[in-house]
């Protein structure tokens, strides 16, 4: 009987730990999303639009989930250093230069990246700040 109770308590503990872990990630995601949205509004929205729809052939939309996924490790570099190459998004070529945003700290880049990849119909989950920092060190 005693063994049974101890086992039960232990099991409940284990579940609680797992649940609270998930909660932490959910909280982080929410944090990143709300801060990322503010950064998006001031730095990105002018060109990419309120709903990530882009602007003609001048600025690409941010709704191509396939592109975002394929370039996941480069997104941070795009945001911080700008883009000076032709990108193909939704089967269309975009050749305009994207400006760099050197004033953004790694954490800002991470937040706005998480916001973009989880808005406008994208749902690619959480990326921690540490991963973004690593990505930024490997920029070409």
């Amino acid at each position: 009987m005693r063994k049974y109770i101890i086992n039960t308590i232990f099991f409940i503990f284990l579940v609680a730990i797992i649940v609270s872990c998930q909660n932490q990630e959910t909280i982080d995601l929410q944090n990143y999303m709300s801060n990322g949205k503010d950064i998006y509004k001031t730095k990105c929205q002018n060109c990419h639009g309120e709903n990530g729809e882009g602007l003609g052939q001048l600025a690409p939309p941010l709704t191509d989930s396939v592109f975002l996924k394929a370039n996941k490790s480069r997104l941070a570099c795009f945001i911080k250093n700008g883009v000076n190459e032709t990108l193909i998004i939704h089967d269309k070529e975009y050749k305009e230069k994207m400006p760099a945003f050197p004033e953004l700290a790694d954490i800002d880049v991470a937040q706005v990246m998480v916001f973009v990849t989880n808005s406008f119909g994208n749902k690619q989950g959480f990326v921690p700040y540490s991963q973004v920092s690593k990505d930024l060190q490997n920029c070409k």
Partner: protein
Amino acid sequence: MKNISYITILISVGLLFASCKQERKLPFYGERHAETVKDANGKEKIDTVYQTIPAWSFLNQDSVVTTNKATDGKIYVADFFFTSCTTICPTMHRNLMTVYNDFKTNPDIMFVSHTIDFKYDKPHVLKKYAQKLGVDGPKWQFLYGTKDSVYTLAEKNYLVAVGEDSTAKDGYIHQGYLVLIDKDRRIRGAYDGTKEEQVAQLKKDIPVLLAEYKK
């Protein structure tokens, strides 16, 4: 019988309200002065003269010399921007695009965008920009001119502040007004092109201004 009198009252009240409603008229912007003019019968009277946009001549996106004659008999919306601008211009032109699309088929309306980047925005750059924005044809002119001519026109005539600023991110600063000009080249409205509700107001005001000329 009683019914008829009710209806009569209802109609007369309705008429009363209808006659109270005054037609909306757009204001005049800029300086004004009184001038004595002679009317058709040779009688002298005093009239108000409003500020007007002077004659201008620039190169458009097709490298064709374009003058104020292009806007003769039309009302038009003017703004100042530059193609490499990453701050307010994309928003301004995103919003202006919706106005352009709304009035695309109306021959009485034109759009005129002046670049303030006299170093980089040569006509072929403007052409590429227009195409990428999704504008084709002469209804929306993108104009290139010398620094002096454009900046003077902006500040003295359209009342829009523009300038070079090496501390600004893209090298230039300017206000994002969309200025509404009537067929007599008077300023009849100025709307912040970065604010959706003001652009919506512009869309409402254009038909009001057009109606003035319908009489």
